[in-house]
C-alpha cells in the first residue's frame, strides 16, 4: 500500500513538474512572439503546436500586455496556469520567423524541452540589424516617399535630413528607456521643425510636401496592419488594443507636429 502510494505520488509529481516546466517555457515563448509583433492567431497556433508535441492541450488568452496560458494533460486531471507579462522588445520579424520554424521542428522532431529552451534563448538574443544601417535606409526611404508625392529635389533633401535627425533621436531616446509616446512626440517635433525650413527660408516649390512627409517615417504601419488582420481573424480584443495603441502613437505624431507649427507660426493649406 505504502509503496503503491509512493509510486502514485512520484508519477503525480513527475507529470506536474513536466506540465509546469513546459507551461513556463510556452508562456515565455508566446509573450516573446506577441512582443515582436506577430499576429495573434499565429501566436496561438505556434504555442498550441509545441504543447501538442508534448502531448498536452493548451488554452491561451492573449492581451496587449499579458499572456495567460493553461496547459492540461490528456485526461484533463492535471493542469498548470501561468500569467506572463509581455516584455517590450520592438518589432522583429526575424524572431517571428525563427520561432515559427522552431514550433514546427518541435512538432515534427519531438524535440526535448532543454533543447527548445536553448534554441529559444539563442533566437531571442540574436542581434538586430546595426542601428546605422537602419538609420540610413529609413532616411532614404522617407526621402523617396516624399518624391512619390511629387516633392521637388529640395523637398527630398529636406526630408532626408529631417528623417535622419528625427530617427536618430528616436533611437537614442528609446535606448534611454523613455516612454514610447514621449519618444514619438519629441521625434515628430524635431522632424517637422527641420521639415519646415523649406517654408521658413522659401526654398523650392513644394515646401508643403517637405513638411507633410518629414515625420511620416513614424507612422506605425505594422501595428495598424496587424490590428486589422487580428480583427478579421476573430481576435477582436487583441486587434482593437493594437489599433488603439497605434492611434495613440499617431496622435503623438500630431502633437509633435502641432507644437512645431505653433513654434514656427506656419499656416498650412
Amino acid at each position, binding site marked *: 500500500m505504502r509503496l503503491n502510494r509512493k509510486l502514485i505520488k512520484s508519477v503525480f509529481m513527475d507529470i506536474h513538474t513536466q506540465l509546469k516546466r513546459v507551461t513556463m517555457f510556452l508562456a515565455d515563448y508566446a509573450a516573446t512572439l506577441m512582443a515582436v509583433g506577430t499576429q495573434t492567431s*499565429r501566436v496561438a*497556433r505556434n504555442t498550441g503546436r509545441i504543447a501538442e508535441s508534448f502531448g498536452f492541450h493548451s488554452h491561451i488568452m492573449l492581451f496587449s500586455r499579458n499572456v495567460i496560458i493553461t496547459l492540461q494533460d490528456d485526461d484533463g486531471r492535471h493542469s498548470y496556469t501561468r500569467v506572463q507579462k509581455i516584455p517590450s522588445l520592438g518589432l*522583429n520579424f526575424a524572431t517571428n*520567423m525563427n520561432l515559427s*520554424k522552431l514550433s514546427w521542428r518541435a512538432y515534427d522532431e519531438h524535440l526535448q524541452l532543454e533543447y527548445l529552451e536553448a534554441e529559444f534563448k539563442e533566437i531571442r538574443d540574436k542581434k*538586430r540589424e546595426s542601428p546605422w544601417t537602419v538609420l540610413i*535606409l529609413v532616411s532614404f526611404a522617407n526621402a523617396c516617399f516624399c518624391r512619390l508625392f511629387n516633392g521637388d529635389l529640395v523637398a527630398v533633401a529636406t526630408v532626408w535630413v529631417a528623417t535622419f535627425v528625427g530617427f536618430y533621436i528616436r533611437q537614442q531616446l528609446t535606448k534611454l528607456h523613455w516612454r514610447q509616446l514621449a519618444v514619438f512626440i519629441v521625434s515628430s517635433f524635431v522632424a517637422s521643425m527641420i521639415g519646415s525650413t523649406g517654408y521658413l527660408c522659401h526654398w523650392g516649390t513644394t515646401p508643403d510636401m517637405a513638411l507633410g512627409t518629414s515625420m*511620416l517615417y513614424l507612422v506605425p504601419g*505594422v501595428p495598424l496592419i496587424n490590428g486589422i488582420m487580428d480583427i*478579421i481573424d476573430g481576435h477582436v480584443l487583441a486587434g482593437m488594443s493594437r489599433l488603439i495603441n497605434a492611434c495613440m502613437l499617431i496622435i503623438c505624431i500630431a502633437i509633435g507636429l502641432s507644437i512645431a507649427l505653433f513654434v514656427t507660426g506656419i499656416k498650412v493649406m
Partner: protein
Amino acid sequence: MIMFTMKFILAIVTDGLLAAVAGTGFAIISNPPRKALLISAFLACVGHGTRYFFMHFALIQANLALASTMGALLIGFLAIPFAMYIKCPAEVFAFPSLLPMVPGLYAYRTVIALMKMVQSPSVNVDTNQYVVQFFHNGMTTILTMCGLVVGAVVPIFIFYKQSFSVTRTKREEKK
C-alpha cells in the same frame, strides 16, 4: 493603345522603384530576415506600380482606396509562392511591402484640417470647408488602410493551411 505611351510606362516604373526603396527602409525598422527584405522591396515595387496604374490609367482612374486594394491583392497573391519558396511566414514580407502605400499624407491632412477647424474663431464658411476636408481625408485614410489589409489578407485566407505551415521544413507525411 495610345494610352500605353512610353511616358506612362516610365512613370509606372519610376513609381515602383521609388516605392521599392521606401519599402526597404520602412521594412528594416521591424528587423526582417535579409532574404525577406529583398522580397518585400520587390513586392513593394510591384504593388505600388499597380496602384499607380489603377489610379492614372485613362480607362480606370480608380480612387486611392480601390487602387490600393488592388495593389495589396497582387502583393498578397505573390507573397504565398515566395513564402513557400523561402519558408517564411507570408506576412513577414507582405506587411512591410504595404508600408509605402499606408496613407500617411492623408492622415497628416486629416490632423491639419482638425486643427484648423478647432482654431477658427467662429463658425463660418471656412469652418465648413475644414469639416469637409477632415472627413474626406479621414475616410480616405481609414478606407485605404482597411483596403490594404483586406487585399493582402484575402490570399492568405484562401491558402489558409499552406500559409500557416510554410515554416515547416519537413514535408508532411501521409496522415
